[in-house]
């Protein structure tokens, strides 16, 4: 029995979510092989080999893997599965969400998405209804296929020198073609992994950045937003926090002018300390807040920024 873990990376470095998935994969108590796909996998494969808990690294380099499409990733994983893996796991990132259901379907097995706890092989906890309920599910499939919610696990640390094996890629599929990625360049920390997140709702209006950015800068925080704020054009969609945005669990989450709809809470309520600033004492956000203040954010946020000196 062994586990194949699909790595997610930016061409230079593993994503933190992959390090968290490596931790999750240890629950199966079987060797974990990390599969790295890319146009040049040397640096990422070397990093993966240095992570504790990794048995082997399988590196597949090919020009068409510079931007991995799910169709290509699936073909490679299916190839590797001939080696007899009993589990395929990855983080619930874009790559994992797009690829693992394909693998499951083509192997005719059911799949568990966004797992937050592995009790035993085939016994998992996962959030349903935007995290308003937690389901424990059981699966007897011979091949277990799952994505894990990264924020539920600590990142695996360095301290290893696993073997790196290079394999060749099957030919590129032709049905879909990568054209462009558009990542907003920001000097703030990445939202998904930032230790502090300052997040705002639609009531910030045109002053979203003017009010929140100085506080975020002072705290070294990432900026987050509600869907309502994103839809109103106040913030770019990649900073939406929630069921349909990014799931975060920072040390500190400051919610300014956020009502606390279930779909928003589902993406941030595992934060360590939650601060809510809202004029409405009945706003649902106060139900999850450790520290609440019923006041106008346009007063509180600048004053807080000032007092943090």
């Amino acid at each position: 029995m062994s586990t194949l873990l699909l790595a997610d990376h930016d061409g230079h470095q593993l994503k933190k979510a992959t390090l968290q998935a490596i931790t999750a994969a240890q629950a199966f108590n079987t060797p974990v092989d990390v599969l790295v796909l890319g146009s040049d996998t040397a640096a990422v494969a070397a990093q993966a080999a240095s992570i504790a808990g990794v048995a082997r690294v399988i590196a597949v380099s090919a020009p068409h893997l510079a931007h991995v499409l799910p169709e290509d990733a699936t073909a490679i994983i299916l190839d590797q599965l001939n080696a007899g893996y009993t589990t395929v796991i990855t983080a619930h990132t874009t790559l994992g969400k797009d690829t693992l259901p394909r693998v499951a379907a083509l192997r005719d097995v059911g799949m568990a998405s966004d797992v937050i706890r592995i009790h035993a092989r085939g016994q998992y906890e996962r959030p349903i209804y935007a995290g308003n309920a937690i389901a424990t599910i059981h699966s007897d499939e011979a091949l277990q296929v799952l994505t894990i919610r990264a924020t539920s696990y600590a990142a695996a640390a360095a301290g290893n020198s696993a073997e790196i094996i290079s394999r060749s890629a099957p030919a590129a599929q032709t049905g879909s073609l990568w054209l462009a990625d558009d990542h907003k360049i920001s000097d703030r920390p990445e939202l998904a992994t930032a230790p502090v997140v300052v997040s705002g709702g639609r009531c910030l209006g045109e002053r979203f950045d003017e009010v929140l950015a100085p506080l975020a800068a002072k705290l070294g925080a990432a900026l987050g937003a509600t869907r309502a704020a994103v839809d109103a054009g106040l913030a770019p969609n990649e900073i939406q926090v929630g069921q349909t945005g990014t799931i975060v669990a920072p040390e500190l989450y400051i919610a300014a002018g956020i009502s606390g709809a279930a779909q928003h809470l589902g993406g941030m309520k595992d934060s360590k300390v939650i601060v809510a600033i809202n004029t409405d004492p009945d706003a649902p956000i106060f139900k999850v807040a450790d520290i609440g203040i019923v006041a106008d954010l346009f007063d509180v946020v600048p004053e807080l920024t000032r007092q943090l000196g």
Partner: protein
Amino acid sequence: MKALVAIKRVLDYSIQVRVKPDQTDVDLAGSKMSINPFDEVAIEEALRLKEAGIVSEIVTVTIGASVAQDVLRHALAMGVDRVTLLETDTAPDSLGVAKLLAALVKDEQPGLILLGKQAIDDDAAQAGAMLSALLGWPQASAASKIVIADGKALVTREIDGGTQTVQLTLPAVITADLRLNDPRFVKLPNLMMAKKKPINTVAADSLGVPFAARQQQVRVSEPAQRPAGVLVKSVAELVAALKAKGALQ
């Protein structure tokens, strides 16, 4: 080109979820049920493609018990041409949904299949990718923009930390994100008219594919409650409380 849109009937997104006291499932008794919000966006997109002259016919399908007729009526009221209920009392999982849809595709031969990026009840986000894999058709998930020309779909999709543009050769499977469009408001007269339109009901069992869920739900529980917080009266108290919690470095 024919478009096939798959929709699911789910607990309305605005309803507070209750877990049954015996922890076997969530309690849906008497609750308002609606079309999955992402699927409504998928229908709207198909309608716009039809209005643009790209799609000629829109077929909408749902898999579920006979009560699921209501979301098909909603689809008809929005303006889709035909609806099919694949009727079953055994709820399929995403793999079962993908298999049933793949079987339907053999008859319908659509050029484009639209689904939601995820169902807001199981939050699985699997069916679209599974269907694409079973059919061997290209996939684009979480679409926020679709442009179709010359047998290709140019899709902008939401990915971690940004967006991505891919080009798919049709036929293809695309799943809708909320940002794709704002679904039209359904007018009452349209809803009345939709009540008179036929629903093609097919027993899901008759398609000859096994679709029963592959995983058992052992238990459904409430998420861990956070301990009650404190309310502070001033920013100075807020800073002190943050320091007390060790939340400031």
